[in-house]
């Protein structure tokens, strides 16, 4: 028999109490793992989202840059318009490696989402779009047959949702327009998966925005020349230059301010769990005063008693840590769902990524928490004097 057996058997004595205490630890660990998993996941997905845009600089019509940034991430451009002449002027700049004009437009489709209605994003793009995103692949079909064909290429998820295949006809009721599906893109894991792409000229025509653009995506030959490049556009009226690095930073800032809130929730959950553990163990120590006394009488040293109580606390936290991690892993999709509802902007990829390192780290954290929480109750138990403990309570 080992000290561990004695400790473990004691935890089984009051099953509900032990279970609840373990539950408290499990919840705290689950919250912690989810939040930290979200940290990693969000950062990774956002970076992926932005890198996969293919451009480092976006030129848009003047407006709130944050609004533009989020709108753009959701659909490639703030819905303010600028003249195509700007594009013609910038395009000649020798510092530019690739450049692609875009015109975004949204349409409300009342039949979407089982009759709930939903917004469909149309993106007018030119042939240079594919140069900006060389990784784009067609799942089926191909590029538009001409620059102003009434054709559409659908992002992977939009096609799945609408059950579209190449060759289908799409009717836009508000415009009374029919477009032919000529291609479907492979999944990219970014917002592009939910977009309908149409030729730029077609977009300008059917949405009645001749010579207008919502944004210009630019990849520079050398990102170091960004400052110069921005400066050269200063004199251009009605436009602004947004660098994607800036956008990333802005979004991170937005998210980290809300992270302060969530982190304090995690800390409070952990504190409550620790108090719960200390309370439970302390209670069970006092209930067992006589037993502890008799153990001392039959030869247990202070250290032996300390050991038993400390082990009980640590066992609770180890089990709590284990179950908490299982809860966190099983709850990932739920957490993702909640985050998507609350965040101003959520990237397309996995928002919560739970890595083995994170699991190991938080498990160790739970163990350490147990070791710390156990000190006081174990000390109290080990300090009991045998005679007083044995005679207590009569």
């Amino acid at each position, binding site marked *: *028999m*080992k*000290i561990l*057996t*004695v400790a473990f*058997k*004691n935890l*089984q*004595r009051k099953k509900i109490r032990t279970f609840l205490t373990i539950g408290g630890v499990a919840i705290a660990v689950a919250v912690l793992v989810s939040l930290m998993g979200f940290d990693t996941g969000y950062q990774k997905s956002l970076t992926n989202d932005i890198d996969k845009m293919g451009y480092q600089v976006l030129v848009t019509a003047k407006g709130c840059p944050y609004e533009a940034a989020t709108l753009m991430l959701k659909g490639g451009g703030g819905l303010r318009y600028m003249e195509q002449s700007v594009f013609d002027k910038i395009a000649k700049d020798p510092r530019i490696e690739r450049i692609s004009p875009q015109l975004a437009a949204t349409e409300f489709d009342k039949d979407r989402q089982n009759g709930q209605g939903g917004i469909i994003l149309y993106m007018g793009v030119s042939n240079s779009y594919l140069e900006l995103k060389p990784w784009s692949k067609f799942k089926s079909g191909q590029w538009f047959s001409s620059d102003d064909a009434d054709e559409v290429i659908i992002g992977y998820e939009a096609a799945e949702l609408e059950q579209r295949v190449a060759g289908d006809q799409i009717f836009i009721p508000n415009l009374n327009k029919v477009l032919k599906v000529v291609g479907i893109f492979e999944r990219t894991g970014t917002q592009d998966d939910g977009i309908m792409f149409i030729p730029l000229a077609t977009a300008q025509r059917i949405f009645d925005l001749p010579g207008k653009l919502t944004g210009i995506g630019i990849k520079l030959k050398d990102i170091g020349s960004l400052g110069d490049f921005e400066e050269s556009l200063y004199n251009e009226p009605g436009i602004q230059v947004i660098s994607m690095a800036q956008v990333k930073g802005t979004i991170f800032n937005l998210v980290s301010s809300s992270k302060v809130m969530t982190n304090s929730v995690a800390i409070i959950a952990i504190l409550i769990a620790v108090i719960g553990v200390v309370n439970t163990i302390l209670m069970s120590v006092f209930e067992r005063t*006589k*037993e502890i*006394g*008799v*153990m*001392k*009488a*039959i*030869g*247990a*040293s*202070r250290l*032996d008693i300390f050991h038993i109580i400390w082990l009980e606390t640590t066992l609770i936290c180890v089990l709590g840590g284990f179950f908490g991690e299982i809860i966190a892993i099983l709850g990932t999709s739920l957490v993702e769902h909640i985050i998507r509802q609350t965040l101003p902007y959520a990237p397309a990829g996995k928002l919560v990524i739970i890595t083995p390192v994170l699991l190991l780290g938080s498990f160790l954290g739970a163990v350490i928490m147990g070791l710390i929480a156990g000190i006081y109750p174990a000390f109290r138990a080990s300090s009991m*004097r*045998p*005679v007083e403990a*044995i*005679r207590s309570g009569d």
Partner: protein
Amino acid sequence: MVNILIKADRISKIYTLFAEEIKAIKDLDLEIRQGEFIAIMGPSGSGKTTLLDILGCLDKVSTGKLNVLDHDVSAFKESSLVKIRRVNMGFVFQEFLLIPTLTALENVVLPLLFSGLPQEHSKAVSLLERVGLGHRINHLPRELSGGERQRVAIARALVTTPKILFADEPTGNLDTKSGQQIFDIFKELNQKDDLTIVLTTHNYKLGLQARRIMFLKDGCIVSREESSLFV
């Protein structure tokens, strides 16, 4: 030459309760020799339990000199007392005080765990068999009768092969029949194994069966007599 295990020289135990001093043991002299079987008797509050605790190294004396197994324990701290008692003393209590989560066998093995002695299960089993519980070794205390629990407690007290067995009213919670059975076990241990036994009891019928009887009153020994009933 008779082996003296415990020698008490004018020992006292003073409790302080609300600034009032209670002298539970008063300048008491005592010798306990190897192989003795002593019953301490006396009215409630006379200091029987207190004396037993002190002799068993469960508690410290307030004044006087106490020599236990050639150690002057008068000045010992609890950490030193535990080392003396865990290999030399066995304890049996009125309320049995078994660990409720452990089986009879585990309860008996527990002192070995604390003493760091080899956990010989065969020894624990044979002790349980000796007290007539060979068929109950895997039972939890709550599945045993009072008499059976006290027998487990005796096996637990014996597992470290102690030199002295202390029992504080071991039959106090038992009916006459089981009380006598427990007492018979003590008698046998004393006679066959030459185990030194010190116990307290309120029961004259049982107390008079010990080899020596000591009457305590207000913390003093008022009479010591050899029993005529001891057989």
